[in-house]
């Protein structure tokens, strides 16, 4: 019962060397594990998630879930997208019921389960609202309820909180930890926010760009629920940030003028080079 990413490579365009986005990625995710993929923009972390979801196909390699090869998108892997992707023509309740309706589950059962998950995300009283009546944070809660309601073991989340303000994001991170502990799903979570990754994950996978590869893994062995301001979390964030610094610079260099450098512009300075400023 595990999710295996086996030798996944992905290139866009005809010339395979020109645009290699993912280069031979291997990953084993255990049942019930919470894994975060972090990396600079363009490292292929969202592409990898889409390949696991079956929404994009890999150029080579395969995804194996519980011993069978993943071919297409399916209800054994629920997805929460960055933009909520909720259907504006349906009410909150109908949105949460959607997956169950497609599976042909009868109405009573559907209603009961949808209510259970709406209560879990604390939006039961908004069940008859339409999507445009909800705030960004509420929409992501509904999207989470909708994904949980299809009862898949695996939950794939593609930067779900990145468009939210930081207070809402903190609340949702706490709640996602609680929901994960309650439901024991396997979660693969893509983010560019290292703090978010450390707060949420059992294991943080750092990816490097051009081409996208797994650079390093960090096991986060901290008790839960974790809070972003706790010193242990900050310690891990520091460690991972240092690891990522080089990658961020590499991507930035490709985008900015040649006279830009990470040291000169003090974008991510070392603690030992600032002579105690901020003490």
């Amino acid at each position, binding site marked *: 019962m595990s999710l295996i990413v086996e030798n996944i490579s992905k290139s866009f365009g005809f010339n395979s060397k020109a645009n290699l986005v993912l280069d031979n990625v291997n990953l084993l995710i255990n049942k019930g594990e919470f894994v975060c993929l972090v990396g600079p923009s363009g490292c292929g972390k969202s592409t990898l998630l889409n390949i696991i*979801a*079956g*929404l994009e196909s890999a150029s080579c390699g395969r995804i194996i879930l519980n011993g069978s090869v993943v071919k*297409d*998108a*399916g*209800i054994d*892997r*629920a*997805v929460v*997208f960055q*933009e909520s*992707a*909720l*259907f*504006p*023509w*349906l009410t909150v309740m109908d949105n949460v019921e*959607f*997956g169950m*309706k*497609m*599976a042909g589950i009868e109405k009573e059962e559907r209603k009961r389960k949808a209510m259970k998950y709406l209560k879990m995300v604390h939006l039961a009283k908004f069940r008859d609202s*339409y*999507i*445009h*009546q909800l705030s960004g944070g509420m929409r992501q809660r509904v999207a989470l309820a*909708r994904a949980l309601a*299809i009862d898949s073991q695996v939950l794939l989340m593609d930067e779900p909180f990145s468009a939210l303000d930081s207070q809402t994001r903190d609340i949702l991170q706490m709640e996602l930890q609680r929901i994960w502990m309650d439901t024991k799903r396997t979660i693969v979570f893509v983010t560019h926010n290292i703090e978010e990754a450390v707060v949420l994950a059992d294991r943080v996978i750092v990816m490097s760009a051009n081409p996208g590869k797994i650079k390093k893994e960090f096991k986060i062995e901290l008790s839960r629920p974790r809070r972003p301001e706790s010193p242990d979390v900050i310690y891990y964030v520091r460690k991972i940030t240092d690891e990522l610094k080089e990658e961020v610079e590499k991507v930035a260099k490709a985008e900015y003028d040649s006279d830009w450098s990470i040291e000169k512009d003090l974008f991510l300075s070392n603690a030992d080079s600032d002579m105690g400023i901020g003490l």
Partner: protein
Amino acid sequence: MPSPISVFLLIVRLFKTKTLIYAILSSMRRLVIGYLISIVIGFFVGFLMIHFKYIEENFGSLILGLQTLPNLAWIPFAILWFGYSESSIIFVIAIGSIFSISLAVDSGIKNINPIYLKAAKTMGAKGYKLYSNVIIPAALPSIVSGLKEGWAFAWRGLISGEMLVSATGLGQILSKGKDASNISQVVAVMLIILSLGLIIDKFVFGRIERSIRCRWGLM
């Protein structure tokens, strides 16, 4: 120009002799039949265009061209095919609105935000269920505006068809008014057509559009 009073009196008289009632009823009957036919064929052609890319590539501009062809231009064709009959009028009504409906279905489906389709796929929607639960509702705002446009074209087809084929109906009264040089009658029928159009637009399409806009949060 006729005086408003004479037009008003004429409308009252036409109602009293029941000429107008029969004319409106038989015109509406034709209109509804022709329009329903055009919805069925329009959706079918629209889905064909979506489903088979080569149809769209090869016939897309032809269909666009057919949409700009006025209903009136189809009348000689219809008369040669169906004679001076009910069928020719219905044909002219349907042919006028089919293409605007199919183009609206085609572009409505093509412009669906791909994230909805992705989300639907991850929740196990496919085939017929994907169409009825995601594709049609997602494309509905633009399909409805196509249906509305089609309705306007159907009206034009109806009146021109009735004027030329001369079957009981509003177009016929209009045309008789012209023959008798009775401008009050011409203006009276024009007013009737105008108000029927407004009523249907407000109570049928207006309501549908408002409820869609309300759901999607566009107002």
